[in-house]
């Protein structure tokens, strides 16, 4: 693909950047780990004396928590902060001077950091796997392939949502509120907070027609073998469809947002 090279080098540059901020990333991982541990104990207490809840065994629940943690490590706060940061500190106007598409450039950076995030969190998960014996890992290679594809799609969907929330900062002076609201909604409707099966029926129905479930619910369910192979394939297609739709929405939103630059004085 012509013109792709510059985005590749942006991704590489972002990868190095992530390495430079590794301490920060590791601390953020620790934060995530604290949440993971607290949830682990809580669910353990909840499952005490029960074999199954909302279709989940304790073993499956542990797996679900780990997969959610892994997906949460990808596309971390750092990538998210970079998009809104550029807008808020006005350096977005410098980006406009470069022969780069803003959306593609941000995606390239995200993918770059992702490589590092993936490796670090992968190592961490492996360590955790050793620590917790009762986790169910899929045996079929097909499930692994589907899970990886689904994870890729998950990242793209998450990027689409993160990118659009970032663009909202053209109309605000701070990013925290926007990001917190985004996290709250995403956590609930993606299944990161609690498996969707635990939610009231109407919320489950709502989650099914929104893109958020593509971020955690779909890949986690595939990993747990909750879908048959053809169903899983269908869900992956749906995920990519959402990614494409969100990409187009982001493109369209950028066109409107970029007009704000003069107002913002950036």
């Amino acid at each position, binding site marked *: 693909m012509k013109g792709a090279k510059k985005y590749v080098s942006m991704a590489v540059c972002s990868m190095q950047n992530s390495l430079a901020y590794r301490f920060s990333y590791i601390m953020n991982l620790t934060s995530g780990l604290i949440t993971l541990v*607290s949830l682990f*104990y809580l669910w353990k207490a909840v499952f005490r004396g029960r074999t199954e809840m909302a279709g989940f065994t304790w073993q499956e629940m542990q797996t679900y928590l780990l997969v959610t943690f892994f997906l949460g490590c990808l596309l971390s706060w750092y990538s998210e902060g970079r998009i809104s940061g550029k807008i808020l500190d006005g350096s977005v106007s410098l980006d406009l001077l470069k022969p780069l598409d803003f959306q593609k450039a941000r995606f390239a950076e995200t993918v770059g950091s992702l490589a590092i995030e993936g490796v670090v969190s992968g190592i961490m998960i492996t360590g955790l796997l050793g620590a917790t014996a009762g986790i169910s890992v899929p045996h079929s290679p097909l499930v692994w392939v589907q899970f990886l594809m689904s994870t890729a799609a998950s990242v793209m969907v998450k990027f689409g949502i993160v990118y659009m929330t970032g663009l909202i900062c053209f109309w605000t*002076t701070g990013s925290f509120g926007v990001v917190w609201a985004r996290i709250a909604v995403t956590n609930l409707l993606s299944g990161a907070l609690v498996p969707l099966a635990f939610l009231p029926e109407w919320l489950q129905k709502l989650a099914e027609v929104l893109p958020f479930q593509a971020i955690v619910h779909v890949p986690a369910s595939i990993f747990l073998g909750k879908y048959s192979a053809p169903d899983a394939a269908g869900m992956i297609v749906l995920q990519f469809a959402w990614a494409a739709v969100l990409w187009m929405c982001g493109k369209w939103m950028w066109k409107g947002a970029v007009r704000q630059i003069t107002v913002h004085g950036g």
Partner: protein
Amino acid sequence: MRVRPIRGLYLYWRFISTQIKAILEYQADFWILVVSAVLTQLMGVVFIAAVFARIPSIDGWGFWEVCFMYAMIYVTEGIGSLFFEGTWRMLRYVNMGELDRFLLRPVSPVLQMLASAVGMNGLGNITLGCALIAVSLRHVRIEWTALTVFWTAVLLLSAVAIRVAINFGSNCSAFWNKSSGNAVPLAVHNVGEFAKFPITVFSHGVQLFVSVAVPFAFVSFYPAAYLFGHEDWTRYAYFGPLAAVYAWAVAYGIYRMGLRRYESTGN
């Protein structure tokens, strides 16, 4: 130096009202922050509700009791944001050398730092959190005597003091770590996750950690134990004020140590 509480309070008010006036000019931001705080907190409630829809109690703790702990974490966080958001600016003050400004004035730099910012999201946290606390307290029979009222007030105040001290102390890591952003204070802040649930579900190590090292348990769990009459944990609740003094002593110690390392660089 003489300590003059009235003058301190007056100056605190002068500083913070300046910040409030400034922030109210950005109306859109104000509402986004308030709404986002409410949303975040609601997610927590949805989570608790989802769990308690399937089981009546966790380790002997019921829905409203856990709600109360949850709300305590959010209310104190809200008070920290609304009135003491400055703690979260420490990184910038140290890295950009902005602490100079505070150090040049004949007023406690800690007071100036605490009053240097306002987080309107706190308003959302406080409103929803207080409502939640009020509702959950209606589900328990408490004999309101002068003594219980006194202890409730003391425990709530201690809870706020502990929360702010933890924010302050952990943000002072900025004196040592210049490049890692808010990662350390955020990780410490996240330890509060443990205190959103009855700490009885955790291992002894975790229980000790959130009671002594980072005493978040005194923000939510122990006051809950006291108010809801969980006999076996109530006696520890009385250590709340002590924990508050201890948390502030440690935080202030970290700050003093950090100040000696302050380099005032950056332009």
